[in-house]
């Protein structure tokens, strides 16, 4: 579903990704772990098309298309979802309005009918329930006044509503307490665990992987994937640390 080949990317003049290659087929949950500064967030931002991140070499193919040639909103319409490490607050815009417009924009780009207000609210209620989030919160402004954990849960509600084929989740577990981690993990499983979907799960900790069991685990260090293995690789990292495993 997603094939990254020899990707090089810079922020300003600073090269961050230095020949990253990775293949994630449909049906796979692929965890990416790595020390601070390895390039995990840069990878997320490059995949999402954030301004300021320059790809200097390499390619990214998503569902058979050149992902890097697409604008961020076109990537979303093709089925890519970014779970933000730091979800953005948007004062004055309600979650309901934002998500309905976003979903209908995606549907329009794909040639599907728009959802009516009623249809959308039913869908939103359903997905909010999955993440044990009150509908009242969805009527509030996007992420404004939400706690760290609520923001992450709201991200997953957004993912449920937008129903992407591929999700890149950047440290979705950061800022979550134990209960919220279980809820968010179960949400990821419910929404994304399917034969025609895939997830790139970027995390620092094994604890999320106890709930969302990865098929593959890769270590990102120095801007490249240095090792790929099964779930046992994450356990080794947790036990021994990066230096020992990568030595």
């Amino acid at each position: 579903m997603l094939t990254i080949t020899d990707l090089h990317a810079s922020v300003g003049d600073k090269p961050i990704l230095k020949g990253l290659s990775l293949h994630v087929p449909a049906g796979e949950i692929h965890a990416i772990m790595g020390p601070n500064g390895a390039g995990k967030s840069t990878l997320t931002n490059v995949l999402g098309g954030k301004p300021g991140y320059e790809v200097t070499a390499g390619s990214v193919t998503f569902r058979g298309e050149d992902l890097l040639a697409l604008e961020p909103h076109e990537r979303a319409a093709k089925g890519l979802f970014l779970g933000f490490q730091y979800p953005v607050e948007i004062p004055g815009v309600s979650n309901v309005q934002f998500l309905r417009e976003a979903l209908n924009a995606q549907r329009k780009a794909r040639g599907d009918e728009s959802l009516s207000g009623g249809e959308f609210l039913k869908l939103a209620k359903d997905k909010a329930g999955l993440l044990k989030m009150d509908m009242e919160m969805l009527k509030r402004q996007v992420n404004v006044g939400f706690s760290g954990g609520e923001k992450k849960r709201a991200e997953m509600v957004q993912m449920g509503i937008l129903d992407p084929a591929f999700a890149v989740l950047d440290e979705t577990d950061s800022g979550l307490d134990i209960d919220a981690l279980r809820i968010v993990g179960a949400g990821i499983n419910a929404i994304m665990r399917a034969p025609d979907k895939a997830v790139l799960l970027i995390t620092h900790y094994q604890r999320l992987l106890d709930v969302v069991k990865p098929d593959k685990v890769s270590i990102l260090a120095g801007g490249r994937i240095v090792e790929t293995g099964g779930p046992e690789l994450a356990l080794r990292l947790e036990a021994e640390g990066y230096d020992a495993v990568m030595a």
Partner: protein
Amino acid sequence: MTVATLPTRREEAWRYADMDGVARLGVAALDQWQAIDVPAGESVTRCLVVGSDAPELHRFRVTLGEGATAAFFVTNAGGDYTRVEVEVRLAKGAHFEFGGVTIGGAGVTREFVTQVIHAEPEATSNQTVRAVHWAGATGNFLGEIKVARHAQKTDAAQDFKGLLLEAGASANAVPQLEIFADDVKCAHGATVGALDEGARFYMMARGLDPASAQRLLVQAFIGDAFVALEDEGERETLLDAALAALEGAKL
């Protein structure tokens, strides 16, 4: 009173005006004040969408009786110099509400000029102005608040925010407070900034195209100006007129 000559930029209230536009309006236009007298205890609401392809000047002189209320909500989206002036005199316990949006490009100056005179005690006023500009355009808010010596317990607030979509556009806020009473609250604030690129990217990452993302952000930004307007239909008319002006704006 007859104004014999055109004003100049040396006059504070005309400091940021488009003097070419003023000249095209002509001396006669300066004399046309609309008087609105609101008797004690009554209230008046005016919703206006102003602006056309010619210069426009709208001048209101409002007198509020005891406990009376006047509310003005204005979308100023002219294609040429467009100026809206409101002079208000508040009696005891009266309230004046002003919500204004200047929006547009094309190098045009659009402005609000208010003079709020708290002549008696316990009157309140609240003014919220939002300016969204691009393509060398200018948005101005010159707001004067005068509090008379015996107008104790006056509560006056003024809030201006400018959003500039590209370099070369400008926003000017000129709060002028003249307070002679000692037991009053007068608040004013002014900020000018650019569109939140982080928010725009977040919206695009969820599927909104750049124009839709900008539109939603601008809608949220200017919405503050019309929050106090209870009539939903009128509010929609003002917002729609403002957002229509956004078509073709710099992304």
